[in-house]
C-alpha cells in the first residue's frame, strides 16, 4: 500500500518538475518563466521528498524529508523574489503582451529607489 502511495507521489512530483521545465523553456519573458519554475518546481521537489519519506517509513528519514520539504517551500519564494526584484530593477524587458505593470510608476528604474511621493506600503 505504501509502495503504491510512494509511486504516485514520485510520478506526480516528476510530472510537476517536467511541467516547470517546459514552462521555463516555452514562456515568453523572465517573470512568466519564474512563475513556472518557482511554483511547479518547488511543488515537484517537495512531492519527491515526500515520496522518499513514504517509501522508507522510518522516523529519522521521515523527519529529515519533512525538514527538506519545509526548507524547499520556505526558500523558493525568497530566491524568486530576489531574482525578480534584481531583474526588474536592472531593466529586463517584459513580454510585449504585458497589460499591468504596477511597479512602473512607483519605482524609478534608473536610481533603483522609490519615486518621491509614492509610499512604500
Amino acid at each position, binding site marked *: 500500500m505504501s*509502495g*503504491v502511495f*510512494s*509511486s504516485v507521489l*514520485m*510520478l506526480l*512530483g*516528476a*510530472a510537476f*518538475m*517536467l511541467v*516547470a*521545465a*517546459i514552462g*521555463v*523553456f516555452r514562456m515568453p519573458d*523572465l517573470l512568466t*518563466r*519564474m512563475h513556472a*519554475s518557482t511554483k511547479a*518546481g*518547488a511543488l*515537484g*521537489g517537495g512531492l*519527491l*521528498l515526500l*515520496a*522518499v519519506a513514504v*517509501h*522508507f517509513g*522510518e522516523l529519522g*528519514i521521515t523527519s*529529515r*524529508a519533512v*525538514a*527538506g520539504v519545509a*526548507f*524547499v517551500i520556505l*526558500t*523558493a519564494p*525568497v*530566491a524568486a523574489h*530576489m*531574482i525578480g*526584484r*534584481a*531583474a526588474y*530593477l*536592472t*531593466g*529586463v*524587458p517584459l513580454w510585449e503582451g504585458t497589460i499591468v505593470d504596477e511597479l512602473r510608476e512607483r519605482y524609478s528604474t534608473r536610481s533603483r529607489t522609490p519615486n518621491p511621493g509614492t509610499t512604500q506600503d
Partner: protein
Amino acid sequence: MILERLTAVFVPTHLALAMLIIALFLAFARLLRGPTLPDRVVALDLVSTLAVGMMAAYAVMTNQPVFLDVAILLALIAFLGTVAFALYVGKGRIP
C-alpha cells in the same frame, strides 16, 4: 516479492528519472539560450531543483536513505547560490 519490488520501485523510479532527465534537457536549453542573465539564473535554479528531485528518486531506486541527506544539502547550497547570483545581478545593468 520480486514482482512487488519491480512494480513498486523499479518502474516508477525509472519513469520519474526519465521525466526529470527530459526536464533537465529543457532547463539546460534555456540556460544556453538566455537571452538575459536573470533568465540563466532562473534556469540554473531549476537545474539545481531538478538535481534535488533526482537525488530523491535515486534514494528510492537504490534503497539508500543516505541520498536524502545529499538532496537536502544540495537544496541548501542551491538556495545560497541563487541568492548570491541575485545580488550579483542587482549590482549591474543588463547589457
